[in-house]
């Protein structure tokens, strides 16, 4: 099951058990929402394609005592409604969960307008908003548990190509924000979302650090990084402000000097001007497993 559907089925289960959760949609549905809409029509509020209003309405519903999830198509919940997120979620700390369909270049076919390239970078500038990028169903499920047990502002983005369960719940420390897998090695790979998912399945003989929730525990993250001679970060988003930037900032703030290579979208030749898809963009930007393996072997800088 994909991570979005797992998230919505878990919410349905929570509401069935008596949790007061409302869902504010911006003209989006999902097969996993059909039961919710049928059984709890009052709790499904559709504002139309109006991302700013979705966050504002969610804020009002929170003031009326409800747990609220907004549901929208990326990048718009962040890029169009950033001011609402900034004022209502970061500043007033209203416990809204912004659930966003599609991550990074997942829908590159639809063009530049529909690629969520900067969402993580933008949201990282805000305090109090947790950014969750599930790399498997377990993390998606645990996001709902956390939303119910600890109401707080959250943003969660779902990559439609992430469809498996890769972690046991016991392996995941949600508070820490990152999960480790793979053997200890000279090189560590720091990844998130689709890349964490791909690499975990690839089972490379290196340590993989999956940053599934930001901000993560910086001290523990830095202590982990200090064990490696070299770090490669890889993400499906722009290089400025993403997890590569985050890694450099944390190393710098803790006074650790370790070489970091950032694999991310740089668009050195400008934004795509052709009919494109995720594979083509990854190829053009050097974001492929082949490139990563060459880097690991020291055959490519």
């Amino acid at each position, binding site marked *: 099951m994909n991570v979005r559907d797992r998230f919505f089925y878990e919410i349905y289960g929570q509401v069935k058990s008596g949790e007061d959760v409302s869902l504010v949609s911006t003209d989006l549905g999902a097969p996993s929402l059909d039961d919710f809409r049928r059984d709890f029509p009052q709790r499904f509020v559709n504002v139309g394609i109006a991302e*700013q209003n979705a966050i*504002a*309405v969610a*804020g*009002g519903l929170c*003031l*009326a005592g409800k747990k609220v999830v907004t549901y929208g198509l990326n990048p718009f919940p962040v890029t169009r409604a950033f001011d609402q997120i*900034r004022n209502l979620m970061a500043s*007033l700390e209203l416990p809204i969960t912004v659930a966003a369909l599609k991550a990074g270049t997942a829908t590159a076919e639809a063009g530049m307008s529909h690629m969520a390239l900067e969402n993580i970078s933008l949201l990282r500038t805000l305090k109090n908003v947790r950014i969750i990028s599930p790399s498997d169903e377990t993390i998606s499920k645990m996001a709902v548990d956390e939303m119910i047990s600890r109401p707080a502002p959250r943003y969660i983005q779902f990559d439609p190509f992430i469809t498996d369960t890769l972690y046991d719940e016991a392996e995941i420390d949600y508070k820490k924000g990152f999960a480790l897998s793979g053997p200890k090695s000279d090189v560590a790979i720091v990844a998130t979302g689709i890349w964490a998912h791909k690499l975990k399945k690839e089972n490379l003989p290196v340590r993989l650090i999956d940053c599934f929730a930001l901000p993560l525990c910086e001290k523990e993250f830095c202590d982990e990084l200090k064990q490696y001679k070299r770090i490669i970060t890889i993400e499906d988003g722009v290089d400025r402000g993403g997890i590569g930037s985050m890694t450099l900032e944390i190393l710098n703030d803790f006074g650790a000097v370790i070489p970091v290579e950032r694999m991310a979208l740089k668009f050195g030749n400008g934004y795509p001007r052709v009919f494109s898809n995720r594979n083509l963009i990854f190829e053009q930007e050097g974001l492929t497993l082949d490139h990563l393996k060459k880097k690991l072997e020291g055959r490519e800088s």
Partner: protein
Amino acid sequence: MTEAGTRAVKAFDEIKSYYEKSFKMRQRFIELFSNLGFGHLTTAFSETEILIALFEKVMRFDEDRKPIDKFVLSKGHGAGMVYPILEDMGIFSKEETDEMVQIGGDLAKIREFVYPGFEFYGGSLGIGIGMAAGLALGLKQNREDRIVFCLCGDAECYEGSVWEAMLFAAHNRLNNLVVIVDRNYLGVSDFTENMCAFEPFADKWKSCNWDVREINGHSYEELFDTLVNVYKRPSSKPLCIIADTVKGKGVGDLCNIPLRHGYMPTGENADNTIKKLERFGI
């Protein structure tokens, strides 16, 4: 005097006392915010009667003086006038208000108690009406008999999110939502009708399926007549009250002048402005 005559005199005296309150609130606003060195005098003065009418006459409070009805101040630059009014209501003492309205004063304190106007701080324009709509929907779902009042600026209505919320509120039949637009006809740089005309403004709200009333926003008689009736309104539509006001009302030479939006007199200018304050009404 007959019984009807006695009632009329009493009503006259009550209205007169509200106009006197208007004068005092404007005076206190200048004292508070000239000391702070920052404020939005003209916008605070266009909404003074609206806020006094709401807080001191219309909205319902419980026995602990906590508001039963909700109030969202979307035009956050008008928040200054709330302080003298809460002080006048006895919610804060003069000393507490002085302590709050200063550099380093505790902005969040007023929110802790959820006094009207501080459900949410406005200022980032166009957000408050959507929040008020969400709150009204949530209260309806909870079967709570409360009215949500929301005060917007007219120039705030240039924000697209206002129109998103207008459609949403009408579609969801939020008849527990009352939006009051402080229609002072001025933005920051110019008159609304010169920048990008709103008129026919009432028709636009009506076409979005709202009930609309147009009143004089400085007249307590008209404000009370309209606002006290919101509790027994036989309509499924949300209500928009377009309150015709004057930006800077009460200080003749600050009225209706563009580029006075962020004006706040300090020192000697503040003393002179207080001297120039005009009484109006009965």
